[in-house]
């Protein structure tokens, strides 16, 4: 089967889980015998991608493909929907316009069996490819604008693109039941058009890691004194619910003082979070690392005992599985999709500060509980394979193709 895969990023040039998911999904599809044309909006070298053909829609470097992160659509979009290609690529709409025309050219006289578009970023190109070739369009929703904007409405233009793509798609893949529910209720798409396919997780691609106990030496020292380290490793945006988490940290410390909190990452809420920790009188128990990658990023998972995913709205939440891989006990909001495929975890509603505090204390105070959670979740994520995801995709492609032919 020939698949046109419309993506926005691939590792190592990814800013989040989208690139990781696209990489593994494509690889598993290739292993299942498919041939894949993968279109990217930038030019760069991607190691270990020999299993598919990568097409660069522009000559931009990975750093300049957006002028901003792939996820931060809210702030800077001027409508350049119909701007002619060839003009300067100053913002994401310019890049998208160029991406669309590249795809149009690519598929002319060379129709794929299925078009697989990922998120609002490539939806317009997917619609165009369908228009030109008549091949079935599968829109894969990793995140909606509702997720990205927390509880706010978000960017209306992005909404419009999403809405159009969901209407035009022959089938829709949602990465969780939460996401499906948003698609059905907020975009008014019939439920039977949307299939939930949870992401896989391939722990073997996390390169072997040698922990360096000097990276977080102070935390290591506290651990020898009986402290428990709870962490979040994320972007500091409204979507991630970190204000609630900080308040829960303070609440937990009222009852149990041998807890420290590692806030790893950066983002627009950083200053607010720092101020809040001081206002709550717990700044000595909260550690900010700034943006981290590589050794420090891996060490942050390793030094932690508990990983909290405090998101207000998280379609999936790959980082929770990365944390589990590093022996963390997981506490995940009920608003995070990854919680749907795991049993050995604590869940809470993102606004329920007391419940999160309670769960933090429970784990810190009981080694038995921590061990049950830690070992239990490892058994569970081992079952989430990309090969299964690929099989689900292939049967969706065939089903959609039959429908288009009929």
């Amino acid at each position, binding site marked *: 089967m020939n698949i046109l895969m419309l993506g926005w990023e691939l590792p190592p040039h990814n800013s989040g889980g989208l690139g990781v998911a696209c990489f593994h999904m494509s690889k598993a599809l290739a292993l299942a015998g498919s041939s894949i044309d993968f279109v990217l909006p930038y030019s760069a070298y991607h190691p270990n991608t020999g299993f598919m053909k990568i097409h660069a829609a522009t000559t931009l470097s990975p750093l300049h493909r957006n002028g901003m992160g792939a996820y931060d659509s809210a702030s800077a979009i001027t409508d350049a929907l119909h701007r002619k290609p060839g003009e300067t690529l100053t913002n994401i709409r310019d890049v998208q316009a160029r991406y669309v025309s590249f795809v149009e050219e690519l598929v002319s006289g060379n129709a794929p069996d299925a078009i697989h578009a990922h998120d609002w970023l490539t939806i317009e190109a997917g619609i165009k490819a369908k228009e030109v070739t008549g091949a079935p369009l599968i829109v894969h929703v990793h995140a909606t604008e509702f997720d990205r904007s927390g509880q706010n409405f978000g960017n209306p233009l992005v909404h419009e693109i999403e809405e159009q793509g969901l209407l035009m798609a022959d089938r829709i893949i949602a990465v969780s039941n939460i996401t499906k529910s948003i698609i059905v209720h907020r975009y008014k798409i019939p439920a039977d058009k949307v299939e939930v396919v949870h992401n896989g997780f391939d722990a073997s691609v996390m390169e072997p890691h040698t922990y360096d106990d000097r990276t977080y030496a102070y935390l290591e020292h506290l651990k020898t004194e009986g402290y428990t380290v709870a962490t979040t490793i994320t972007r500091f945006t409204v979507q991630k619910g970190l204000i609630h988490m900080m308040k829960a940290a303070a609440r937990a410390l009222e009852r*149990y003082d041998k807890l420290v909190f590692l806030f790893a990452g950066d983002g627009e809420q950083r200053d607010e979070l720092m101020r809040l920790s001081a206002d709550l009188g717990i700044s000595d128990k909260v550690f900010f690392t700034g943006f981290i990658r590589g050794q420090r990023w891996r060490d942050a998972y390793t030094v932690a005992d508990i990983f909290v995913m405090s998101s207000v709205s998280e379609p999936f939440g790959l980082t929770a599985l990365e944390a589990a891989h590093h022996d963390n006990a997981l506490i995940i909001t009920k608003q995070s999709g990854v919680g749907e495929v795991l*049993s050995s975890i*604590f869940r809470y509603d993102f606004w329920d500060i007391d419940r999160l*505090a*309670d769960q933090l204390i429970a784990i810190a*105070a*009981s080694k038995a509980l921590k061990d049950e*959670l830690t070992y239990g979740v490892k*058994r569970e994520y081992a079952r989430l394979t990309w090969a299964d995801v690929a099989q689900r995709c292939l049967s969706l492609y065939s089903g959609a193709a039959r429908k288009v032919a009929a």
Partner: protein
Amino acid sequence: MSHKGITLYLHVHQPWRIRDYSIFDAAQRHDYFDDESSTDRNNQAVFLKVAEKSYRPMNRLLRRLLDEQPDFRFSLSITGTFIDQAKRFAPDVIADFKALVDTGRVEIVGETYHHSLAFFYSREEFERQVSQHADLIQATFGVTPTSFRNTELAYNDELAQWADSRGYKAILSEGWDPILEWRSPNHLYRPAGTSDIALLTKNYRLSDDLAFRFGNKSWKEWPLHVGTYEHWLGASLAHGDTVNLFMDYETFGEHQWVDTGIFEFFHDFVSRWAEREDRRFYTVTQAAETFAAAGELSMPHTVTWADSERDLTAWLGNSMQQEALRYLYALEDDVIRSKDQRLIADWRQMQTSDHVYYMCTKWFRDGDVHAYFSPYDSPYDAFLFFMNALRDMRFRLMHYHSSSNGGF
């Protein structure tokens, strides 16, 4: 020569489920069991629901059968926590049970008041709970148990020896094949190391046909007809004296809903059996007095009536469960010495085996999420609330004793 028959035994129990008791409640309020939410932690709501679906209609049916069939008889075990809840939430249910017992054809089997696993943690506490239960049964129904069952039918030789030494005439266990080997569960046995007591083993195949399979439409025998079931019982009785049908009382109306036809089935089945000249119903103690033991049976290791493993792993299989009970029983001396009746009662209600059952994680292994019923979102939540309540009990103990039991 005595007639072969059926020994029917129904188990009646409700636990005091712990509410979403948070660490912020600890040392502030001690109302672990008072949940007024719309969740399944609301003990009153659960009790009233089950009363409507099971206790009331089944009591009516049993009463009717006792009236219609002078030879019908059976046994019940009713926990103290059930009786306490019934008295508080639905006193008519207790009156109904009393009316059954008053016929003289319904035996009450002894057990621990709190449906606990105390036998495996503290012999002293176990004996206190058994006699507390006997007192309650005497006060409520005017009878004293002469047979014994341990929580979840958790049985071993030591338990049988204890019951024998206390003068019980009969004791109940699972009739588990690896133990029975070539023997039939339809015989009575003499437990190893005892002199007088008789062991009745559950015929789990015929019991589970009703308790688990009756309403299952994908079961190849569905729908089960009285004639078929009677035929199976007859075939089984080719060996032994009595088919021991042991099951939860809630089988009728709660596990098997009214629309499965379970009540009609039971009525017809009991009527036909009672009308036969060559067949009888026995209570547990009557069976022990009627039939002779076929031989000695030894169960050095604990056997229960749960899961395919028939062991205690649903209650003590993971380290959370073990930790929870270890900490709970570690408080025993301090709690008893406090003489604080409210505290002692709370401590005992925490011993109900259901609490640790809700912490069971073994079903995660096969992803069979529906295998275990629990009022909590997860086993971890169950552990969380239990431990918070336990911490509060430690706090309460500090009023009485200078040193607490350590730990957080």
